């Protein structure tokens, strides 16, 4: 017990550092995947056959394979196969590779939710806009978008909660996120080895993080309760 208390500051420091990586990966994934998902959704809805078929094919591949494989491919393919290690060796290169894999993966999941959301807005809404002389663009931004957002908040929330935990997958390319940081104390780090308890601490970080995200999403859902 005394030993644990002694090790605590070192462990917390390391875990905090790992958590910052987790948080960064989480944020950048959402920041990138929200708009990219919308572009992909428009792709699948395109009247031009090649565009809609290509995007549907990409979605099928991305959703049909594990994110972990995608991470490994994005990270190792340029170096090992193309002999052009674009990511470099450092933590920032690993982060960039992880961010790209996560953004593309989540954008594909989001795009399917967006598509369902757009299609669930009744055709009469668009027609009312057209008859009032609005452009397609005005109709999307001033009429469809908010109705779509209202409908997709619950399924998107599920994905966001999943993302909180999925960030741990980035460990596979040695991104030093929080589980990597916790596990390091088992293998030996900062002069501490064979310690399992930091991992329990790690779980605690996730619980708090998830709690905050859940509350924030519920608040947002309530915000949109003013219309039906």
């Amino acid at each position, binding site marked *: 017990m005394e030993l644990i208390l002694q090790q605590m500051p070192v462990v917390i420091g390391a875990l905090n550092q790992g958590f910052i990586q987790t948080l960064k990966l989480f944020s950048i994934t959402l920041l990138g995947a929200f708009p990219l998902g919308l572009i992909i959704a428009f792709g699948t809805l395109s009247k031009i056959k090649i565009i809609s078929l290509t995007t549907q094919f990409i979605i099928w591949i991305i959703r049909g394979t594990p994110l972990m494989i995608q991470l490994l491919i994005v990270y190792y393919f340029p170096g090992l196969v193309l002999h052009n290690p674009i990511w470099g060796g450092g933590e920032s290169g690993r982060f960039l590779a992880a961010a790209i894999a996560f953004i593309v993966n989540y954008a594909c999941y989001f795009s399917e939710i967006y598509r369902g959301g757009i299609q669930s807005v*009744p055709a*009469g*809404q668009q*027609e*009312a806009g*057209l*008859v*009032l*002389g*609005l*452009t397609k663009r*005005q109709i999307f931004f*001033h*009429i469809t978008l*908010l*109705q779509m957002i*209202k409908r997709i908040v619950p399924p998107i929330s599920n994905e966001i909660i999943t993302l909180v935990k999925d960030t741990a997958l980035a460990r596979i390319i040695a991104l030093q996120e929080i589980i990597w940081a916790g596990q390091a104390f088992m293998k030996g780090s900062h002069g501490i080895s064979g310690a399992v308890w930091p991992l329990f601490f790690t779980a605690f970080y996730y619980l708090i993080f998830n709690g905050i995200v859940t509350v924030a999403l519920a608040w947002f859902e309530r915000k949109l309760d*003013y*219309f*039906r």
Partner: protein
Amino acid sequence: MAILEVKNIRKKFDDIEVLKGIDFSLEKGQALSIIGSSGSGKTTLLRCLNFLETPDEGVIKVNDEILFDSSDPLTRSESQIRKKRLHFGLVFQSFNLFPQYTALENVMLAPKLAAKEKRNKKSDDIYEHGSKLLDIYHDAHELLKQVGLSDRMNNYPHQLSGGQQQRVAIARALILKPDILCFDEPTSALDPELTGEVLKVIRGLSEKNYTMIIVTHEMEFARDVANHVIFMDGGVICEQGNPRELFENPKEERTKQFLIRYKN
């Protein structure tokens, strides 16, 4: 001179011809009623006039200006259509109000966006823009008062009854001052006790000589309000004429049958 001339409108949906050559004209300040059983093509005709559907054939003229001519591809381009459809307004059977906006916001949305577009293109300076927004706000208030909703302006659609929603929809169409306002069974989605308040608003418009086309199953209303009635059947105009004559002395057998069915 006729404000609206429609010539030989034809429309097919996957090989099934829904409109088989519709011709009619409408004088300024007159109300035209279109009656006919379900599936006869009334909605499709209104949708063609509002460019929600593109006719396969035919000509649509408003104030002698050709808005649509199936043989002239220029009249079919999207940007052209957007301007031209504003000659018409359309009130839907199912209201189609925008749920995220209040009654007032629903009415103001289209003119506000048009004003913003002009401002962005720098064709309006800031003062013109401001005074336009003020006018829009004022007009919207006036119109909502006119349809009897002064005390409901800040309610969202889900807080309004069907009759109130439809009256907002009428105000929303009127604020753009269309030459011809079309109604597609404006009371069909309403509980019977709510139809009166909507019909009253339309009657008020006809008293002000607003040019209108009203598709309706309210026969009595059609007879009272319309200056002219068209009976459609199977995608053609089967009979048309003065309302009193058509309702009391229909000439075609199909018209007789239809009216008998509606009496019961």
